[in-house]
């Protein structure tokens, strides 16, 4: 399992390639990999968004992401999980979050990936501040 908070852009496919090469899961035993990548959009609630800053609560973030992953591993019988989440300034088009899970079975992998994303969105202490037209800024006030 790997949980990582990043303050620099990352390439999800490169990260997955590197992570799998570490041999953290035996390639011939997992069967199913499900994953989700959340990317910064240039539009939100009808407004053009030029950039974003992601604030977090260092320490609590890692602790809760670990708890969220352990919960999914136990409930869905996962073999492994990887979460990478950006913080700091982010440009439109850049990945914000990557969640990948490995399991022997397809249904468990889908369920676990969704469970981790839902828990992360509702419980992990991250906050987004958007930069709009004419230098206006706005805190995103709820997650969808």
């Amino acid at each position, binding site marked *: 399992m790997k949980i990582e908070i990043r303050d620099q852009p990352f390439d999800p496919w490169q990260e997955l390639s590197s992570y799998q090469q570490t041999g953290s899961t035996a390639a011939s035993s997992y069967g199913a990999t499900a994953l989700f990548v959340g990317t910064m959009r240039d539009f939100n609630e009808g407004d053009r968004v030029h950039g974003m800053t992601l604030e*977090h*609560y260092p320490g*609590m973030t890692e602790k809760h992401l670990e708890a969220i992953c352990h919960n999914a591993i136990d409930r869905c019988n996962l073999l492994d999980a990887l979460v990478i989440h950006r913080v700091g300034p982010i440009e439109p088009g850049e990945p914000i979050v990557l969640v990948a899970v490995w399991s022997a079975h397809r249904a468990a992998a889908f369920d676990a990936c969704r469970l981790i994303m839902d828990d992360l969105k509702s*419980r992990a*202490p*991250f*906050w987004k501040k958007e930069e709009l037209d004419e230098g206006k800024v706005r*805190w995103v*006030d*709820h997650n969808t």
Partner: protein
Amino acid sequence: MSITIRLFASLREQLGTECCQAEPDAVSNVEEAWRAVAGDSPQGENVLVAVNMEYVKPGAAVKDGDEVAFFPPVTGG
């Protein structure tokens, strides 16, 4: 020792501070921690509270050495 009170995101900006220390004599629960940092400002319905990085319910106890954090609904992912 003392109690550490932290604020994040919009709440940090509204109250104009991100961290303060409170005396354990004056703060025995999260409501008292809020007043120590925010005075008479109402806490607001949606504010989340964590003690030592675990979510707690309103009225939760706070003891010397604890870290209490107040923050708006989370918007990660």
